[in-house]
């Protein structure tokens, strides 16, 4: 069965990225397919490359990246939500003349259409809210 997952909370202010990761691992373990991951609202903070969680807590941004790359998942970060929150890739940093960029490898910045597209192409959309 085809799943799409949407994540709307940040690692630091919500359990959403962690619940979604647990769920995603179980989806893959049961032989189902994840056709789209979509990070929206504060969920875009999951994709920052420069967070440094305290040593007594797991590093969720890193765990997500490893999982995405291992399973070659289609991981989309909403570009409008990301820009307003300061999560940008090199192309956007250059476009807006920002000093730096911080999007992790494995993620792609794209439009909200990818959330709708994922919802329609999947058999199930599961949203992890903030």
């Amino acid at each position, binding site marked *: *069965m085809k*799943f799409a997952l949407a994540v*709307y909370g940040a690692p630091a202010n919500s*359990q*959403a990225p962690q*619940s979604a990761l*647990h*769920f995603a*691992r*179980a*989806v893959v*373990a*049961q032989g*189902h397919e994840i056709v789209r991951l979509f990070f929206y609202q504060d969920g875009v903070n999951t994709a920052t490359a420069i967070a440094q969680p305290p040593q007594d807590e797991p590093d969720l941004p890193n765990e997500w990246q490893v999982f995405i790359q291992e399973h070659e998942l289609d991981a989309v970060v909403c570009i409008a939500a990301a820009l307003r929150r300061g999560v940008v890739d090199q192309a956007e940093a250059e476009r807006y003349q920002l000093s730096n960029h911080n999007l992790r490898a494995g993620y792609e910045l794209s439009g909200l259409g990818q959330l709708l597209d994922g919802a329609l192409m999947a058999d*199930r*959309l*599961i*949203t*992890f*809210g*903030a």
Partner: protein
Amino acid sequence: MKTLHTVNKSGQPMALCLRAVATGDSVLLIEDGVYELLSSGKKIEALPDDCSLYVLDVDARARGVSLPEHIKVIGYDDFVALAVDHDNVLSWF
């Protein structure tokens, strides 16, 4: 059409879920939704009899919420299986 409803907070998300739930649907409490099992004026008692109530084990355990006997305690594997068994998943947060 059967829907699986997830609830990740007590308060508004639980109240809205109860308004959207239909005969034969299931409700799964996750994250801070597990506190709904404690509250004195329990909203979950308004759940229709033919709806199943589930709670996610890791989230209840993390919060020290002790579980009444009538509730089904499940893990993420079961959560995925429930999502497969229902036609839709609605998340209340």
